[in-house]
């Protein structure tokens, strides 16, 4: 059966190549949009997504938006914090660069140094609890010409911060993150506050916080990420594109397979007349669809990988094998589903058609 199916595809190269290309381009588009969605998601929210945290305690009025959440510092004592539970301060601000007219938009994140919230400094050194007015920046700011030792001025407070290190992939709402200690945080904010209490692994002490602070609640990281300004709108529109692409794929492939089997109805009739069973014909058609799908999916994965390699670095794109495998599965199911429409024609093909027909 396999050789029979393949021989047919080789003989009618053009029509099968057309389907192959349609499948290939749809699959590639799905993979590329998925890569962009992942890339944008990382570019938008990598600081929270990569945070080794499980739940966040936010102010109830914040509507899951960590940048709006304000917890009064007085209500929680330093003793409540542990290696597993840490405070986090977030505020979005603009900063002036020393000896430059340029302003940069950053998100300040206040953390305790040496806590699980502190990112690894890839260049320079990390923050120290003993020193104030130091900052560790996301290395995307190097493209703005910022170097180690340079000073940045917080526009709101006028406080000068010295760049002592760079870390990588730390963004919040598409802005680079600037990490500072809580001592610096207190210098900058006249009324310092915690944006969130972050817990690494769920523990009983989460209830203590809930009891102490009335107007707040624990939410999981996933929801904090969704609450980042612009995150959901961005992801939803990309997701909608993906959903539409897959729906389009069902119809395009369905129509294509349908037309092809209509063309072959007479052929099916003849094969039935010389003894082929309906099940055999359905199986061989399905086999062809599976071969086509396999080839085009493998080609599309390769193509997406190539795109990933050649895209310039400032275009956010992430090649996620697990998600690509998932979408491959969906596309495979979709194309088999599309071809099932045509099995109806195979069942209906009448062997009597072989009789009495002059070419």
């Amino acid at each position, binding site marked *: 059966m396999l050789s029979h199916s393949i021989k047919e595809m080789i003989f*009618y190269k053009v029509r099968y190549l057309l389907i192959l290309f349609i499948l290939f381009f749809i699959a590639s588009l799905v993979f590329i949009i998925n890569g962009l969605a992942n890339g944008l998601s990382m570019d938008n929210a990598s600081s929270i997504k990569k945070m080794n945290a499980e739940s966040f305690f936010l102010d109830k009025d914040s509507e899951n938006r960590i940048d709006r959440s304000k917890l009064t510092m007085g209500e929680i004592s330093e003793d409540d914090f542990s290696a597993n539970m840490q405070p986090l301060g977030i505020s979005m601000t603009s900063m002036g660069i020393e000896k430059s007219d340029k302003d940069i938009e950053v998100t300040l994140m206040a953390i305790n140094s040496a806590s699980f919230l502190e990112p690894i400094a890839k260049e320079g050194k990390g923050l120290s609890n003993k020193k104030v007015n130091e900052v560790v920046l996301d290395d995307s700011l190097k493209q703005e010409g910022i170097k180690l030792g340079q000073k940045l001025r917080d526009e709101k407070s006028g406080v000068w911060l010295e760049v002592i290190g760079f870390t990588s992939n730390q963004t919040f709402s598409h802005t680079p993150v600037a990490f500072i200690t809580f001592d610096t945080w207190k210098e900058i904010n006249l009324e310092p506050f915690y944006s969130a209490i972050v817990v690494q692994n769920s523990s009983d002490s989460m209830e203590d916080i809930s009891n102490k602070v009335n107007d707040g609640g624990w939410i999981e990281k996933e929801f904090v990420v969704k609450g980042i300004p612009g995150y959901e709108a961005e992801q939803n529109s990309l997701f909608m594109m993906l959903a539409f692409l897959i729906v389009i794929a069902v119809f395009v492939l369905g129509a294509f397979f349908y037309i092809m089997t209509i063309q072959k109805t007479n052929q099916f009739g003849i094969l039935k007349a010389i*003894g082929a069973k309906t099940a055999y014909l359905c199986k061989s058609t399905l086999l062809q669809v599976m071969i086509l799908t396999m080839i085009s999916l493998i080609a599309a994965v390769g193509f997406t990988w190539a795109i990933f390699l050649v895209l310039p670095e400032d275009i956010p794109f992430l090649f996620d094998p697990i998600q690509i495998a998932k979408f491959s599965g969906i596309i495979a199911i979709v194309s088999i589903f599309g071809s099932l429409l045509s099995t109806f024609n195979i069942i209906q093909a009448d062997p009597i058609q072989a*009789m009495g027909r002059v070419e």
Partner: protein
Amino acid sequence: MQSQYPLSLKSVTKMYEDGDKTAIILKDLSFNIKNGEMIAIIGPSGSGKSTFLSIAGALLTPDDGEVIVNGVTINNCNESDKANVRLNQIGYIFQTSNLVPYLNVEENLFFVLKMAKQWSVASKEFCHLLLEKVGLLNRAKHYPYQLSGGEKQRAAIARAFVNHPEIILADEPTASLDSSRSLAVMELISNMVKQYNKAAIIVTHDEQILPLCDRIFTMKDGNLVEKEREFI
């Protein structure tokens, strides 16, 4: 004894709904054929020759009566069993060759064997023997579109014999050929039917092939009437 005939029809009736009227195509038709016998069926078009052949070949189900192939009544078989009967017991030769276009000549023969799960070295050799008999061995690797009408029909004849069927059914096998070629094709069918001791029914318009047949029937009023030899 039913089983002495490879094919026998008993009181077969077939009707068609034509608007509010019912047209009776075959009426209480009974018919037997022996091995080694070649029978021609002639008659005007629309007289039911092709319907008769379709019923004999398990392509159509009669409204009444019995169709017995090698002692087995096939009226009540399901589609899959009928497909098996067509595959293993009947060899068809159609008006047009109806070769599978994307398989070459020998693959068209192999394909039938593979479907019947009779694929072996011996059966492959038999394919080549058949192709030699129909004079197409040198064309075994050609695709149908590369063959002439007569060659295609000869390939179809070889295919009809490949599964060792007891019954050969031919529906106007020479309709798409000119007169010199059609005689050659008919001689070929006749020789092979005699050599392999098959039972063959040929539906035809072509008077010149009648001398090759053992018995000749005319389709008249839904029944088969045997013609006397002297009239030909």
